[in-house]
């Protein structure tokens, strides 16, 4: 399953819910969700703790807008809007953790 998270992990519990409930697959961070994968942040620790359970992606345009594209933790692939569509097509189902 493709899990989409669009909220900052220090503002809302969306990333926590996703990491606790989702079985695996991929996590795509978009909008304020991209803060979750910044180096040295609380979100990074949570994503690392989830180990290799998920493939990690973040929307490049959202990371660039927030000035953090060069601060992404290791193991996160930045995708563009086409890559976003490809991910939605690749996975059978999609859950947005709004």
């Amino acid at each position, binding site marked *: 399953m493709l899990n989409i998270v669009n909220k900052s992990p*220090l503002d809302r519990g969306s990333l926590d819910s996703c990491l606790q409930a989702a079985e695996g697959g991929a996590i795509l961070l978009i*909008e*304020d969700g991209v803060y979750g994968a*910044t180096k*040295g942040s609380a979100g990074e620790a949570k994503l690392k703790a989830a180990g290799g359970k998920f493939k990690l992606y973040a929307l490049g345009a*959202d990371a660039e*807008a*927030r000035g*953090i594209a060069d601060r992404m933790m290791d193991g996160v692939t930045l995708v563009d809007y086409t890559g976003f569509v490809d991910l939605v097509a690749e996975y059978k189902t999609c859950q947005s953790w709004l």
Partner: protein
Amino acid sequence: MTIKKFMFVNRKAPYGTVYALESLEVVLIAAAFEQDVSLAFLDDGVYQLKKGHSTKGIEMKAFEKTYGALDDYDVNKLYVDQESLAARGLTTDDLCVPVEVMSRAALGKLIEDQDVVLSF
């Protein structure tokens, strides 16, 4: 005109919601009325000051430059919560404008000392 102490408390990340931009609009209005304006940044609000915003990809107006222009309006009291920076892996080197970093408790005292508090 009576000059009052206005504090703008910013707690939201930029772009994901409209709070940050709206706060700036009201800050400029208060400054135009020559009020004693301060800005506090805590929680995800500290992300507003992260330098290097490039918003072409999301087709939104980047307002990073507005923070740099605040000094032209004699708005130069910007306070940032140390704990909020640390939790996000940020230091003052990552910020686009000079700020005064302080503890959450000190920030609370500062907010208490205001005539008007506006929350964003």
